[in-house]
């Protein structure tokens, strides 16, 4: 009996340790994180991150379609890879960046590029140096919609599946819709028809364009807020 007491004590104790070290302690340390507040002469002039619920629907589509199985949303520092040199961000991401995300989509695979800052105008997926032989068009909403519908029209040999079910092909009645895709070649619909995004696609793209974690933070070296640095 003594021996099984030791066995039980060992099993329960080791589980408690595991749970304490990897769940409770981190929750204690990170659970109370607040947005960074920069003060300028007593006035709050800068708050990051901000709670933004307007893109929750787009974010839900990002999750239900499983975008995060191929795209991460975390930028590592120089010691941990070439994320910054690639242009996926201007600084590494830290826990504070995610405090308003109930279920952050950090991702564990990169079959596609990191999207933590894809909505930032500075985001790029290739080096500006001498190796850059490929220059993308501006990544605005119409670029993203075209990319979702037929990835290979904008990225040669893209490995992303086409998300045609987020769009519908309609007969053009009178005027062509403003949001109809500019498709050519094999992807183009029959004459007299047009491809327009369903609300899901529009919301997803709005969510993607909202992604920007490039705001300076105190805890990330080299990115101290300008106001605080003054």
């Amino acid at each position, binding site marked *: 009996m003594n021996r099984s007491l030791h066995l039980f004590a060992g099993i329960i104790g080791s589980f408690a340790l*595991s749970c304490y070290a990897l769940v409770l302690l981190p929750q204690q340390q990170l659970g109370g*994180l607040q947005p960074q507040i920069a003060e300028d002469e007593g006035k709050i002039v800068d708050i990051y991150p901000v709670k933004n619920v307007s893109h929750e629907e787009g974010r839900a589509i990002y999750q239900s379609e499983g975008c995060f199985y191929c795209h991460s949303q*975390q930028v590592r520092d120089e010691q941990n890879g070439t994320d910054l040199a690639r242009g996926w961000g201007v600084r590494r991401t830290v826990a504070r960046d*995610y405090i308003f995300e109930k*279920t*952050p989509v950090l991702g564990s695979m990169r079959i596609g590029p990191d999207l933590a800052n894809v909505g930032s105008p500075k985001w790029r997926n290739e080096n500006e140096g001498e190796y850059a032989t490929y220059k993308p068009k501006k990544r605005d909403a119409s670029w993203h919609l075209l990319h979702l519908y037929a990835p290979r029209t904008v990225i040669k040999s893209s490995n992303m599946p086409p998300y045609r079910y987020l769009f519908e092909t309609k007969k053009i009645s009178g005027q062509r819709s403003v949001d109809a895709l500019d498709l050519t070649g094999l992807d183009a619909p029959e004459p007299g028809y047009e491809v327009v995004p369903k609300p899901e696609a529009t919301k997803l793209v709005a969510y993607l364009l909202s992604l920007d974690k490039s705001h300076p933070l105190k805890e990330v070296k080299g990115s101290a807020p300008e106001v605080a640095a003054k």
Partner: protein
Amino acid sequence: MTAAALAPTPTTAPAPAAPSAVQVQAAERAAIDASASGPVLFFFGSAILWLLLATVLGFISSVQLHSPGFLADCPIFTYGRILPAYNNALAYGWATLSGMGVAIWLLARLCRVQIKIPAVLVTGAIFWQAGLTLGIGQILAGKTTGVEGLEIPGSAAVLMLFGYMLVGLWGALLFGYRRQAPAYISVWYLVAALFWFTWTFGLAHLSIQLPGVTGVVQSLVAAWATQNFLHVFITAIGLATAYYLIPKVINRPVHSYHLASTGFWAFILFSGLTGAVRLSGGPLPVWLVTLSIAATILLIVQIATVSANLLLTMDGQYHMVYHSPTIRFTVFGALSFTIASVVGLLASLRSFDRLLHFTFFQSAQTHLLLYAFFSMVMFGAIYYILPRLVGCEWLSSTMIRWHFLAVAYGAGTLIVSLAVGGIASGAALADPGMIFSQVIEDGVRYHIGATLGWVMLALGHVIFAFHFLLMLFRIGQPGGEPTLFAPIGEEKH
């Protein structure tokens, strides 16, 4: 309490003490097998159905990695839904159900207790699978939690947890009523597995629902749960089975009980602390990842002791892999455990993780552990256990030989393709000048290799499922002498 007192009992199973006791013990084993037969057959049968489903889903997801347009126009078949459906079907369908079936049978045998009210176990398995079916259906319908590794929504997870707890409770009762006083090392691992899974699964699904748990802690909880599932639950059942089957079939005791004991305590102490390596380099406090890397390195104590113990037990008996199907599968699995553990240790080091994180190398590691180690040991166990439950031996050693060839080469092709592809893209991406989409395009060739691996795995699984079906209908060779690849004089069971 000294180390010696903590060491497991020096018998692999009740050994015949006197000739007169042999028949009594054989009758007792037969009675235990008869009581376990219903639920264990149900566990194995359903596990194999899930394995077939996982094979289809895994094949589709692999094809989509080199032909992204494949089935892409139908939402339920999009890669982002097929992949988690595959992961859940393989882990919670095949691996968990086969593991629970083996665990229950081993506990009954090693504790020398007949199973009372086996319907409870069957009910547990039905609840588990109802929840899992609902959960995978919701993933395919796009109603996932969105947390990688814990995709199954709470309502389905509750059904699964209830079903699991029935099985876990019955396992604990077998241990509680044991008639074999000092518990064998396999029992230690099994009790640990049953306990850890319940609490990890329950707490993880509970905490991602709690309003106070947001941000990266959610990802950490998911990483912790995934790591505990693979590196505690699955690993413990696989090792318990290997520790039982190898000594049993070659008919000699485990080489060293002290090694077994040391390995167990190192395992139970360090494995549960390794979870944060899954988020290495990510937006977490550095101490967390450092702690997990340290725990992974300390696991070398377990890797060394378990590997040495199993290999030394086999010492001089390696010819048995030519004769016994059980030994061939189990030794393949045991060697894969050593390889998977050493690779896991190296890959957790920051200098390697920096390159291999976010690549298919991680998928290769998961398949090394979950398939090449665990699933192969489960195949070995099912080849050993099933004749004792249905009363006849496997029909065809040729079919077993083809099953082994197909899954061994299939798993090898899949894992090597993923690993080499991961290393290649990781090394290429270390150069910031390499264009990302070019690296991904270059990686496509490795997924063709992986798909080839899936074709072989599918062939092996179909042969195995067919052979299993024949056994269910008692179509086999007369009971008594096990079906061997080649005859052997001294083989005893």
